[in-house]
């Protein structure tokens, strides 16, 4: 073994020249906390790598570098942590899921933390599941009281998910107070207004309250750093992946239900009531929390799936939008402004915006503009045109026939989307022409997020009284 050329004189820590030992230790601490976030690396791995880094720093200091220089060079030599984690992941692929779920690996002191997290998760998921059944204690019936369950649906599971996230982030007292207040406000909005089962407002509330409350979940998600644009972007990514996981769990749940029904029916017992009143609703609520936990748990281990999906669907949606525009021009027929058509177009624009957001959240901020950005520009511009057409039609209908809650909501949403898409198109154009940095686009989108939240709350809180509970 060598060691002769190493700095034999330098002790374990901080005995180098310059007296900046405390500084160096702080840098090591920072490095450690950064590395520990990578779930493929167990505590033992991190300690081993830190020892390596220290060896490297000692040697460089021995060769005459200042401590801070030595640290920088040593870290740089160690290569990109992404690559390192990838190699570890390849070697320890079994760890990925095992670490996520049950056993903390023996030598890791973090094991107990993971077990605690699992307990909190189970508690939150159970809470969500039971919340669905709680109204039955007060005589509600899942099958019959649709006007209660529809607007309240998001109130069963989202608070638990927000609670889980806030717990993970060690949210402060103020933040917890704000979250409780928001969910209480949501509960008030869903239940105080005298809305008939077939009123437009109850449909609007049922659509907008989940959106409003999802932003409350977002607040819990970013509660460790509310102002950071990066954290908001993380939340956008979280939303996309949560959705993917939720759908996957839903598919699995469907298979489970099929087997429950099939096997029990085969032995002459009918499980329909159990499935319809317990398994499906409780499972759906619990899955909201579990999907959120899965996204959190696998963070930075596996390649994210949402960006891959956007790559797949951005070209397809662009083609559909362009095709639609061409057809619209060729046939010179207007858009039929029925309620369903309005909702459809709003949804389409939301999907486009979601595609845009995910692509942004997944994009390497430093990469130069490429073909995909041009494609993105085509998508945004065609969405913008469609939005303009729809807006034109809605305003025409409103001036002609007066307004309804539906039309007003659609109008507001279209204006909000138009503003976002217009400025996004401008920024993407600048990006393609290499005049605007990517960060500008990112900042624009993250700063715009609260606008959606405010609008959703407005619809939920103000529309019913303004439109006379219509």
């Amino acid at each position, binding site marked *: 073994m060598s060691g002769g050329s190493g700095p034999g004189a330098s*002790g374990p820590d901080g005995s180098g020249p310059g007296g900046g030992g405390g500084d160096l230790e702080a840098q090591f601490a920072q490095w450690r906390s950064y590395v520990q976030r990578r779930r493929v690396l167990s505590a033992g791995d991190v300690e081993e790598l830190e*020892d*390596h880094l220290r060896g490297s720093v000692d040697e460089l200091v021995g060769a005459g570098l200042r401590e801070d220089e030595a640290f920088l060079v040593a870290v740089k030599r160690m290569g990109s942590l992404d690559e390192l984690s990838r190699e570890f992941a390849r070697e320890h692929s079994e760890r990925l899921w095992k670490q996520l779920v049950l056993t903390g690996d023996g030598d890791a002191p973090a094991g107990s933390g993971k077990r605690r997290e699992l307990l909190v998760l189970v508690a939150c998921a159970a809470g969500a599941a039971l919340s669905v059944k709680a109204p039955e204690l007060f005589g509600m019936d899942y099958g019959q009281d649709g006007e209660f369950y529809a607007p309240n649906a998001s109130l069963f599971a989202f608070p638990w998910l927000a609670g889980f996230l806030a717990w993970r982030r060690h949210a402060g007292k103020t933040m917890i107070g704000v979250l409780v207040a928001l969910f209480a406000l949501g509960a008030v909005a869903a239940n105080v207004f005298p809305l008939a089962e077939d009123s437009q407002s109850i449909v609007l509330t049922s659509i907008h309250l989940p959106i409003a409350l999802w932003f409350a979940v977002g607040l819990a998600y970013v509660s460790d750093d509310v102002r950071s644009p990066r954290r908001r972007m993380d939340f956008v990514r979280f939303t996309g992946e949560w959705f993917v996981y939720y759908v996957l769990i839903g598919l699995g749940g469907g298979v489970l239900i099929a087997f429950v029904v099939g096997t029990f029916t085969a032995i002459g017992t009918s499980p329909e009531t159990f499935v319809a009143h317990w398994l499906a609703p409780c499972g759906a609520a619990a899955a909201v929390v579990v999907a959120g936990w899965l996204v959190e748990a696998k963070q930075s281990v596996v390649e994210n799936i949402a960006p891959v999906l956007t790559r797949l669907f951005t070209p397809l949606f662009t083609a559909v939008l362009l095709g639609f525009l061409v057809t619209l021009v060729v046939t010179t027929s207007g858009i039929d402004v029925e309620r369903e058509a309005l909702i459809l177009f709003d949804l389409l624009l939301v999907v486009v915006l979601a595609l845009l957001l995910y692509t942004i959240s997944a994009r390497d901020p430093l990469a130069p503009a490429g073909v995909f950005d041009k494609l993105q520009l085509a998508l945004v511009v065609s969405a913008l045109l469609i939005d303009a057409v729809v807006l034109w039609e809605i305003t025409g209908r409103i001036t002609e026939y007066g307004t309804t809650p539906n039309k007003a909501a659609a109008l507001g949403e279209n204006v909000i989307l138009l503003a976002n898409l217009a400025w996004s198109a401008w920024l993407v154009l600048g990006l393609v022409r290499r005049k605007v940095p990517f960060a500008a686009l990112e900042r624009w989108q993250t700063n715009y997020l609260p606008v959606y939240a405010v609008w959703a709350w407005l619809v939920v809180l103000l529309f019913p009284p303004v439109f006379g509970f219509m």
Partner: protein
Amino acid sequence: MKVAKDLVAASATPMVLGILAEADSYGYAILRRINELSGGELDWTEGLLYPLLHRLERLGYVESSWQAVAGERRRKYYRVTESGLAELAEQRRQWETVVGALKEIWRGDAQPFAVVPV
């Protein structure tokens, strides 16, 4: 001269086992030893070494233990096992075959290669 990636990967296991057969060692020292043995031509990354060490441990060729030597940090030391030595012997036979064959070839037409590079 830079040694090709494939060659580095192929020779990594016998090299680490060989170094550990000399004496127990830890990651950083192993890396330095490889650098020294190759006159600086073999520049391994941490992303190559540590996962390899962990794989060898999983395969039972090496054992690891955390040790605190007086006056130094706590370190994870690796020790070659019996089956690691057997594997080393096996790999050595294979490498000798390869190296021997190459030497034969290069002896045949020594002109392009003035120096036999082994």
